[in-house]
Structure formats: structure tokens, C-alpha cells
């Protein structure tokens, strides 16, 4: 088993490193620094950390204002509050194309026990639809470091979706904004994934290979701009296309792939993810089973479809 680390922990570490390199970086949080892991930045640079209290909307617009003074604000809270502060993200930041970053954590159902009220299964959809927004969904700690570093270099709004639970840390891979990563080459079918579902799709790939198939696996750390060329290439090469995400099948990775492929050929296509429902309380492992997102279940769904 590879080393495990929560992507949110990596986010906190990446901010500290970035803080040392770039004095324009400031961090805002909405009374969740212990959870989003911005507490590390707060400890390292107390004069550059601003707690906004439990007021996410105000945090986002304050960051918008701070960005106009030449600062690079990173806002952090739970991903579910992307909805609560959406008008501020839209009108306060994206509409004027202000230089604000959002590192939102505890996304998806693996948030676990807190339950459906706190499980963001729609944040990627909300962020993808905003003009000018870059959307990152890192699949492990190393990719999160790369996303944070890249976010600071992008002039404009960036959303980084991070997860609560520890997940495997893979060897660092070459990183380019807007480019997908081929994890496994193959020709019989392709699975596209993002975020922590990489771990589970890798398990699915093992199962499929054991059945004598040659599956391809492509992971996307950037959902916007989306690497349409790579998605199209593998879809045309394999013909059978599956998307796996810890997000609603509406508006997320699945729909990014679907809109890429629409009108460009005939494919077997299936979106695996949260099937238009809210989450619920439970142990993360049990929730993955409940929503059909374990490696074995993903493999089973693929096998039933081909």
C-alpha cells in the first residue's frame, strides 16, 4: 500500500510553501481552518491569515476586494458552501475576472458522518459553468501541490476541490494545466476519472485486466479547461467509455466527456457517479458501497455494459 495523505492536508502544506515563495499570497477562511488545513498557513504567517467568521459569502467578496490591491487571496471552506457563496463567486469574482482562488475541501460523499447537508456533489457543476473559472480536482497529494502552485500563476479565478480522507499518494507525474494524464494505456475500453476516485478506478482496472481485458485509464486534474483532445482520442481508440467521479453525474466529469464526444462518433457510454441524489450519513467506506463507487462495483458496472 502506498503512503496515504489527505488531499486537504496537502493543500495546507502547499499554501505554506507558496506563502514562503510569494508574499502576495493571503489566506482567508470561514472558521474552518482546523478542517480545511489552512491552520498551517495561519501558524506560519499569522499576519497573512484572515478569519472571516462563519460568513462564506462575505469571505468571497472580501477576497475579491483584497485582490484589487494586488494580493492573491486563497479562500477556503467546505465545498458544500460553494453553493452558499455562489453569487459572490459569480458576480464578485468571476464577472470582473478578479484574481481569487478557492480551495474548498470535504467534497463528495466520503465526507462521511456529517451527512447529506454537508456533502457537495454539485460543486464541480457550479464551478464549470462560470466563464473564466479554472477547475482543478487533484487526485492525490502530489497533484494538489501542483494545482496550488499553478493556481497562484493563473491570473483569474481558480477552484481547487479537495477531499477529507487520506488517500494514496502516487509518484509525482508531469503536470500541465488543462491536460489529462494517461494512467494506463489500453484499447478495449477507457475509464475517465478525477479526484480520489483514481484509487478506486485503479482497483477496477486490476479486476478488468484479470478478466483478460485491456482497459485504458485517464485521470483529469483539470476539469476546466477540459482536455477534449485526449478524451476524444481515447474514446475513439477504445469505443467503450466510462466516467467515474465522486460527484453528481449531472454537470461534472461525465458531462464534460459527454459534451466532448457528442456528435463525434458512436460510443458505448456510461456515467458512474452520484445518480442525481443527495448524500447521507455513514462511514465513508459504506457510502462508497451504497453509491456503487468501489473498485469492484465499478468493474462490475463496466462488465455489465460491454
Amino acid at each position, binding site marked *: 500500500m502506498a503512503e496515504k495523505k489527505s488531499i486537504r492536508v496537502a493543500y495546507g502544506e502547499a499554501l505554506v510553501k507558496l506563502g514562503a515563495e510569494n508574499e502576495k499570497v*493571503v489566506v482567508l477562511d470561514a472558521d474552518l481552518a482546523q478542517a480545511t488545513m489552512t491552520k498551517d498557513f495561519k501558524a506560519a504567517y499569522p499576519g*497573512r491569515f*484572515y478569519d*472571516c*467568521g462563519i*460568513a462564506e*459569502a*462575505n469571505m468571497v*467578496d*472580501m*477576497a*475579491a*476586494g*483584497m*485582490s*484589487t*490591491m*494586488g*494580493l492573491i487571496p486563497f479562500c477556503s471552506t467546505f465545498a458544500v458552501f460553494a453553493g452558499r457563496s455562489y*453569487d*459572490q463567486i459569480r*458576480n*464578485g469574482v468571476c*464577472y*470582473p*475576472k478578479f484574481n481569487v482562488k478557492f480551495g474548498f475541501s470535504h467534497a463528495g460523499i466520503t465526507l462521511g458522518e456529517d451527512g447529506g447537508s454537508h456533502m457537495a456533489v454539485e460543486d464541480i457543476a457550479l464551478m464549470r459553468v462560470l466563464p473564466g473559472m479554472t477547475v482543478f480536482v487533484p487526485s492525490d497529494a502530489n497533484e494538489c501541490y501542483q494545482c496550488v502552485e499553478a493556481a497562484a500563476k493563473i491570473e483569474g479565478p481558480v477552484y481547487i476541490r479537495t477531499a477529507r480522507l487520506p488517500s494514496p499518494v502516487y509518484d509525482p507525474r508531469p503536470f500541465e494545466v488543462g491536460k489529462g494524464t494517461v494512467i494506463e494505456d489500453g484499447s478495449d475500453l477507457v475509464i475517465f476519472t478525477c479526484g480520489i476516485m483514481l484509487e478506486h478506478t485503479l482497483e477496477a482496472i486490476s479486476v478488468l485486466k484479470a478478466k483478460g481485458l485491456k482497459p485504458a485509464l485517464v485521470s483529469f486534474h483539470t476539469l476546466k479547461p477540459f482536455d477534449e483532445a485526449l478524451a476524444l482520442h481515447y474514446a475513439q481508440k477504445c469505443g467503450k467509455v466510462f466516467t467515474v467521479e465522486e460527484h453528481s453525474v449531472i454537470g461534472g466529469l461525465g458531462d464534460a466527456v459527454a459534451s466532448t464526444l457528442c456528435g463525434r462518433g458512436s460510443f458505448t457510454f456510461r456515467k458512474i457517479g452520484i445518480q442525481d441524489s443527495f448524500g447521507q450519513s455513514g462511514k465513508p467506506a459504506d457510502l462508497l458501497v451504497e453509491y456503487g463507487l468501489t473498485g469492484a462495483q465499478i468493474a462490475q458496472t463496466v462488465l455489465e455494459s460491454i
Partner: protein
Amino acid sequence: MDIQAMKDVCRQVRRDIIVMTNKAGAGHPGGSLSCTEALVALYFDVMRGIDPEDDKNPNRDRFVLSKGHAAPALYGTLCERGYFGREEFDHFRQLHGILQGHPDVKKCPGVDASTGSLGQGISIAVGMALGAKHIGSDVHVYTIIGDGESDEGLVWEASMAAAHYKLDNLTVIFDHNGMQIDGTNDQVMSLGDPAEKFRAFGYDIVEVQDGNDLEQVLAALHTPACPGKPRLIHLHTLKGKGVSYMEGQVGWHGKAPNDEQTAQALKELEG
């Protein structure tokens, strides 16, 4: 600029508001006419570093029109201050115009924040003031908010933060004309005593009995800041001020005058 010349500018801005909204056949004259003195005072006297030739000067004081629907008043003021020519009024609210229905920082010179979604401007202004302090700048940030706008919870979230961070480089101008879209404040959502509410949130309060009296507005804006506190200037204003048939009329919140009404308004606003 002497006081009489500034009063002439106020009159001209009011004419601009009428001309602009008439040409567009849309816009918000009522709440533009109520905050005209405040805008002219800011851009012609109070704010430092204002220069149409250098509208990105980082040391300039900042202004955010939080009640973004009063854009015609801002556009009139910016035009009279020399940021763009009067010909832009022909394109107010029109395709490809720089004068969008609500202020757009990407399109209009002199605009520091895109506003229109109410409550957001004051929050952005708080961030600007905090950012100015963070970088050690003595930039002062001004924002005009509406009374109806203060129905928005974000106004109060922002106010808590302004007091918490001791933003004495922030001046919030409260345009209290008493009316919003569907009626008076009290009919739509009672404001109670707004000055006491803002005081309780930690502001230093400056009362202005007649917010359409330029001398009173200037005196208030030149009141020294109270160290460690954001300042709220409570302007008691008249919606539709300067145009007889618009004054105190809820119906002129978001309606443009027709040609006949425009002619009458411009006659009333002659020097």
C-alpha cells in the same frame, strides 16, 4: 473647485441621469438622483489620487457603488470628471457599450468593482480596505449602499468584518431615501433605526440631515476618521431629488422618463 461650481456639476449630473435613462428607455433615475451630491463630493473634492488619465494609479482612493443600479449617477459623475465623453450616454445599456446597466469594472474606466447584486459592493469595499491596510497603503475606500439594499444579510456580514478588522480607512455612505422597488422601506422590510443598527455593529456614525445638501455632505465626508472604527455616513435623502414629478415617488425607482417628461425635467434642471 468652489462650492458653486460643484453644485453646477450636481445639476449637470442630474441632467445626465435624465438624458441617459430617456435614451436607453430604461434605468434607475430615482435612486440615482438621491445620491448625486455624495458622488460629486467624492469625485470632485474628497477622494485623493483621482485622475482620469491614470485611472489605475494604485495610490488612488477607491470607490464602490454598492447600490449598482444607481449607475447613471456614477456614469454622469465620471463623465463630468473627464473619464469619458458624453457620447457614451448614447450607448448606455446598449450592446457593446462601456456603460452597462450596472457598473462593469472590465468595461468602464474609473470603475473599481462590478456591482449590481446588492450587498456585494460593501463586502468588496471591506476587502479593499483590509487589503490596503495589509499592504501598508493609506488608500481610503468609499462605498454607497442603499437602504433597500440593507435587507441583504451580506451588508451585515461585511459590517461585522469591517469593525472586527478596525477598518478606519472605510467610509460607508448610507443613502437613506426611504424607498425601494415595491414600496417604502417600512412597507417592504422595516429597517427600524438603521443608524443605531450600524452603530451597534461598530461604526462611527455621522448624521447628515439633508443628504442632498452638498455643503452638509462635504462636511460629513471631511469629518476626521475615528481611529479603529469604520465610518458610516447616514444621508437622509430624497428619492428622485431635483425632478418634481419623481421626488418621493416609489414608481420612479426603475422607470425611464419619456420624451415629454424628459423635456420637463431638463427645464427644471436648467441653471
